[in-house]
């Protein structure tokens, strides 16, 4: 069981300012004035989502599909407000069309956090297969992406990647690897 999953909601709220992976992500979003956070949930992302909901700086809400969330943050960017989308690997797999027809050609700094399923202990064969489509799709569009495995590198990679996305007007995918988050392991 991932360390992150052992927090109850109170502990998770307290963790927002500490050195947990999700605390660092929240603070990095805030420091970069990213306040609009649509997401399709994922078990591993739960403490981050809880803490984002608890913090009035953020407008955090679920969408029915990941591409809907991409549309929302794209519109918000054009209106002068920064956002980021949270999703799971399988959600990223639904995005090829919107990446290739909206985010990339319109030069929108789409910031994506992808909780990585399908590797390092995956128990669902479908998840492991869909995971293998993610990096080829990112590479086929020459999109910037980083797989974050270490807590001590998280803030640097996330902060620099967000700033690069904004200044170069290009999407970025930050893939949160199980080595960072603990991932999701087989449970009943």
């Amino acid at each position: 069981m991932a360390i992150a999953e052992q927090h109850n909601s109170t502990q998770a709220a307290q963790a927002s300012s500490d050195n947990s992976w999700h605390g660092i992500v929240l603070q990095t979003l805030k420091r970069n004035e990213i306040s609009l956070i649509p997401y399709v949930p994922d078990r591993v992302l739960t403490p981050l989502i809880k803490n984002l909901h608890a913090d009035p700086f953020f407008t955090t809400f679920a969408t029915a599909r990941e591409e809907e969330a991409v549309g929302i943050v794209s519109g918000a960017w054009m209106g002068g407000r920064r956002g980021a989308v949270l999703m799971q690997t399988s959600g990223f797999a639904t995005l090829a069309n919107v990446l290739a027809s909206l985010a990339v050609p319109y030069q929108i700094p789409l910031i994506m956090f992808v909780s990585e399923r399908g590797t390092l202990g995956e128990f669902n064969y479908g998840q492991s297969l869909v995971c293998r489509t993610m990096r080829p799709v990112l590479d086929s569009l020459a999109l910037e992406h980083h797989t974050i495995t270490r807590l001590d590198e998280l803030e640097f990679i996330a902060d620099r990647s967000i700033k690069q996305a904004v200044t170069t007007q290009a999407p970025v995918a930050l893939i949160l690897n199980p080595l960072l988050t603990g991932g999701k392991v087989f449970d009943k």
Partner: protein
Amino acid sequence: MNTSNTKVMNRFDVTSRLIAKLKHEEAVIGGIGNTNFDLWAAGHRPQNFYMLGSMGLAFPIALGVALAQPDRRVFALEGDGSLLMQLGALSTIATLKPKNLIMIVMDNGIYQITGAQPTPAAHVADLVAIAAGSGLANSAWAADEEDFERLVDEAMSASEPSLIAVRIDDKPGVGTTRRDPVQIRERFMHGLGVREPL
């Protein structure tokens, strides 16, 4: 469909009537294909955004603009086939309740641009009932052009998001949007006051 009393209108005519009413730099998001072709043909405005893909995302993009600029009215023009691809977005909008968002659905029951094939909803589904069932209580069919204009006027001062559905004919779009995505996005941002030109 419970639209037996609604007149079949024309997309370009209805779009032109909408644009003529906009006096406060309202944003308008044009969905893929004919919807934005007729928005373009109605006369380019700096506050217009034209989609060149990402079918179904006119409402989500407009929602993002509406959340970023709560003091500006934001319109989204979407086709029935496009809306069918992203019905979940109606519930997202109903949950967030942006009062400055006005959704307009152009419903001809066909994928006009690909050869007029009927949509799966044609003859069986009522998009206004779907919107209302998704939580958008302020959803209505426009009975005719005058009724459309009245519904737009109401939506302009509404305290919740509005959805107006229009039965339209099978005519293609009148114009063709210049397919220059970077320029479309940049000019839209200028029109919204987010950026100044170089």
